[in-house]
């Protein structure tokens, strides 16, 4: 079933790439494929037992000489993120294209990207993880470069170069980690059980450094986040939603799955340093976002801030081999919820930003104002998403951030206290953005501004309904995650 969810989008992408399908039909094929992939994931979810290790596992040999095989399976860490990704892909593919050029290839690349993204979260093989990591870069590069606007090619290239540098560091670290096993194996479950670098000092530290830098670029964390704003600003709205909603999660997921679970001792030794980097990202992301006059760029920087929370949660969860178990479980569950919540919320925000671009080709806050009258539905959607993003109780982010902060206060109180400052700045920047877009005097040029269409409205409603649902009734999600010691130590 999981194999189907990964391979189906690839197959459909190949079909669209080579067969002369008309634009309308290719859109229908793409939506249907994404929905089927999501359905496959939901079927797996229906048979999922929380806290019972890796499930729905399938294996097939690929490079037996290296111990590489096609291995897929899910646990409480990967299933929520994969489900969120599957949903967000349906939303992004169904969202109307900004520039209706070459629709067939646009949808082909989107499906290719979906296959790579789901593959990354579902695979249990370290080499396949890297393969999907790289493929996601290729897909996103072509999407930004071809269908973006402004300096799209430049932004796409910067994105590709930065993240390829990160991914190659990860490759070196993976190789160095795997070379510790005999016979060679890239099986994540075995690596988690073996803890190959336990008891080593310098070498383990260097391997961890490779993983942390590589995943920090992808997440992104300060100071290697600079590829993110141009990539977001120049990308088409749906691609931005995927970039923020799905691709950034790969960094956090990798940090949790590989660095935290496979190198428990080393990660614990360096957890505080990772926590401090996360803190800087939280503060830096929010303060810089506050200074942006381009509202898509502003939303982009809040991703740095939010991913900082998620990484802080992971750092707390991996901070000690023993002690403070309850707090660490809480932080880990918080980090996973943050990944899901951020995917839904920021995905929705970037889709809305795409709707603005489709209408005005402008992201400058100064050029907007007084749209509450023209576009009440848009105001409602953007308002709800913004409130969710700033962590209003009753919405999804709040659930996540509360758990991360409680966990962090138990381990590093001063760090958690400083991180709280980020919340205040975020609140200010979102409220300011809403006010300047929707209230005040409306510039005459915006008189013809139209509200959300029905398609756009339905997609946003579905995403935001989940945000509210997680906010008021998080139990089902937390059950699925079931962050116990089993999760922190892998295979929960």
């Amino acid at each position: 079933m999981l194999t189907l969810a990964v391979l189906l989008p690839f197959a459909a992408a190949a079909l669209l790439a080579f067969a002369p399908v008309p634009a309308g039909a290719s859109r229908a094929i793409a939506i249907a494929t994404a929905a089927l992939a999501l359905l496959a994931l939901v079927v797996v979810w229906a048979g999922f037992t929380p806290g019972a290790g890796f499930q729905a596992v399938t294996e097939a040999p690929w490079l037996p000489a290296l111990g590489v095989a096609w291995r897929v399976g899910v646990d409480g860490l990967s299933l929520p993120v994969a489900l969120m990704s599957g949903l967000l892909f349906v939303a992004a593919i169904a969202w109307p294209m900004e520039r209706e050029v070459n629709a067939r290839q646009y949808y082909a690349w989107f499906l290719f990207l979906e296959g790579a993204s789901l593959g990354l979260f579902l695979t249990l093989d370290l080499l396949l993880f890297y393969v999907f990591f790289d493929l996601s870069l290729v897909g996103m590069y072509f999407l930004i470069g071809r269908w973006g606007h402004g300096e799209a090619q430049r932004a796409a290239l910067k994105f590709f170069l930065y993240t390829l540098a990160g991914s190659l560091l990860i490759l070196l670290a993976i190789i160095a980690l795997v070379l510790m096993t005999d016979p060679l194996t890239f099986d994540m479950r075995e690596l988690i059980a073996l803890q190959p670098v336990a008891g080593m000092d310098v070498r383990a530290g260097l391997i961890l450094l490779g993983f942390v830098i590589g995943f920090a670029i992808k997440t992104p964390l300060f100071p290697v986040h600079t590829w993110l704003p141009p990539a977001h600003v120049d990308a088409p709205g749906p691609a931005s939603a995927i970039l923020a909603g799905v691709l950034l999660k790969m960094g956090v997921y990798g940090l949790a799955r590989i660095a935290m679970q496979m190198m428990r001792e080393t990660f614990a030794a360096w957890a505080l340093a990772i926590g401090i980097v996360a803190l800087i990202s939280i503060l830096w992301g929010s303060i810089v976002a506050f200074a942006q006059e381009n509202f898509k760029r502003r939303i982009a920087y809040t991703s740095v801030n939010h991913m900082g929370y998620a990484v802080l949660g992971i750092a707390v969860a991996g901070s000690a081999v023993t002690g403070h178990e309850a707090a660490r479980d809480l932080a880990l569950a918080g980090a996973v919820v943050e990944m899901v919540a951020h995917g839904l919320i920021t995905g929705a925000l970037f889709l809305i930003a795409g709707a603005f671009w489709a209408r005005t080709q402008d992201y400058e806050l100064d050029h907007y104002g007084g749209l509450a009258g023209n576009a009440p539905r848009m105001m409602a959607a953007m308002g709800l998403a913004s409130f969710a993003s700033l962590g209003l109780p009753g919405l999804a982010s709040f659930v996540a951030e509360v758990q991360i902060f409680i966990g962090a206060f138990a381990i590093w109180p001063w760090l958690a206290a400083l991180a709280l400052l980020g919340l205040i700045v975020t609140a200010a920047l979102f409220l300011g953005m809403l006010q300047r877009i929707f209230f005040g005097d409306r510039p005459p040029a915006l008189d013809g501004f139209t509200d959300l269409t029905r398609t756009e409205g339905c997609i946003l409603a579905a995403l935001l309904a989940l945000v509210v649902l997680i906010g008021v009734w998080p139990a089902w999600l937390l059950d699925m995650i079931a962050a116990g010691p089993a999760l922190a130590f892998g295979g929960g």
Partner: protein
Amino acid sequence: MPVADLGPEIALIAGASAALLLAMVLPQQRLGWCLAPALAALAVAALWAFAQRSEARLTFSGTWALDGVTLWARLMIVVATALCLILAPRWFARDRRHGEFYTMTLFSALGAIAMAGAADLLQLVMAVLLSSVTGYVLAAWHRDWALSVEAGMKYFLIGALANALLVIGVILVMGMAGTSDYAGLKGLDVSSPLALTGLALIVSGLAFKLGALPGHAWVPDVAEGAPVPAAAFLTVVPKIGAALALYRLVHLFPDAEMLRPLIAALSVATMSLGNLAALWQTDVRRLIGWSSVSQSGYALMAVAVADLAPGALPWLIWFLAAYALANVTAFAVVAQLRGRTALSGYAGLARTRPAMAAALIVAFLSLVGIPPLIGFVGKLGLFLVTIDGGYAWLALAAVLNTVVSLFYYARVIAPMYFADPPGAPPATLGLSSHAVVVLCAGALIGVGIGSSPFLAEALATVILP
């Protein structure tokens, strides 16, 4: 004498002679028919080599190693040569005397195979000379085109110097060790300064054939000026022979104190220089040439850790195969576009010639090492053995270089895929080059995903002595 041991090589000579005789009697517009005996000879050579796949012994009084390395060199070189030759008939359709091109190419391929198979220093010298002398002619084939003549001239001047150094090196090593055959040299103490100098000179002579520092300067000129089929051949085939010959050398003297650091240093210098020089090229053929220099640098990584890591040899072979396939694909695309070489000429190619654009993108991404293309499997193996062999810093340097290399490949990919075509679709060469492009691009993906059986075969490779 066990003549049959050299069956594949003799088949090449026979094919070359047949092509030459045919060229003498055919009218100009039929000269392309010389391809037939050449391809037949290559097919016989491949089958014969395959029939000898389980052999592992020295033959011809110990001057020729009939082992796994030779087997793989034969197979890779034969396939690469065939692919390059198929491009030739249409490319040379208006050339007055291209019948000899097939002969010359087959002799050059023979030289490359002999480099990899040599188990004697003098045999190595002969092989390098055969490969070089024919190479000069191939590079300068368009003799009324200044760039082609310049390429041949540069190739010749650098080659003459490098070959002289090689011969001096061989004489020094022979003089100090008292023998020239590998079985006698194996494990011999080479700590005397003269012998070490000799080894270094041999390395620099082979680096010329490999297109690595310090003998790399001919590569971009040949890539730009030589006829495209010859450029594809010269940037690929001698490299395979030279890399394997170098591997044999390090395998002979695993404990020579400065050999590995020297090769590691050459590796870093080569990959860095190749990539930096390629960065701002506006000529696609030169760009591919410089990229081929940097790829030699990667290949040297596996040579530097020869015998230190158990998989160094098979992964070197696999990397060479991946490189050869990707480079031939890139040049085949250039050939199919009738040698179009200005970067601006590639704008909008994805709209006008989608198959060519897709193949070139796949070839470049394979050279970068993006999975699941075959280039990724090769590079993964190189990183694996380099770290395993204790040269992690070399792997790190290769990673930095890979990121840099993506930049210039993207400078070709981006206008191809993102820009609008300036005018009418570019003229193409013909069906045969189109077929080569499609076949190679398909192999880049297909063999990449299905590496496993080939790799299992390569992992069992035996090296003598």
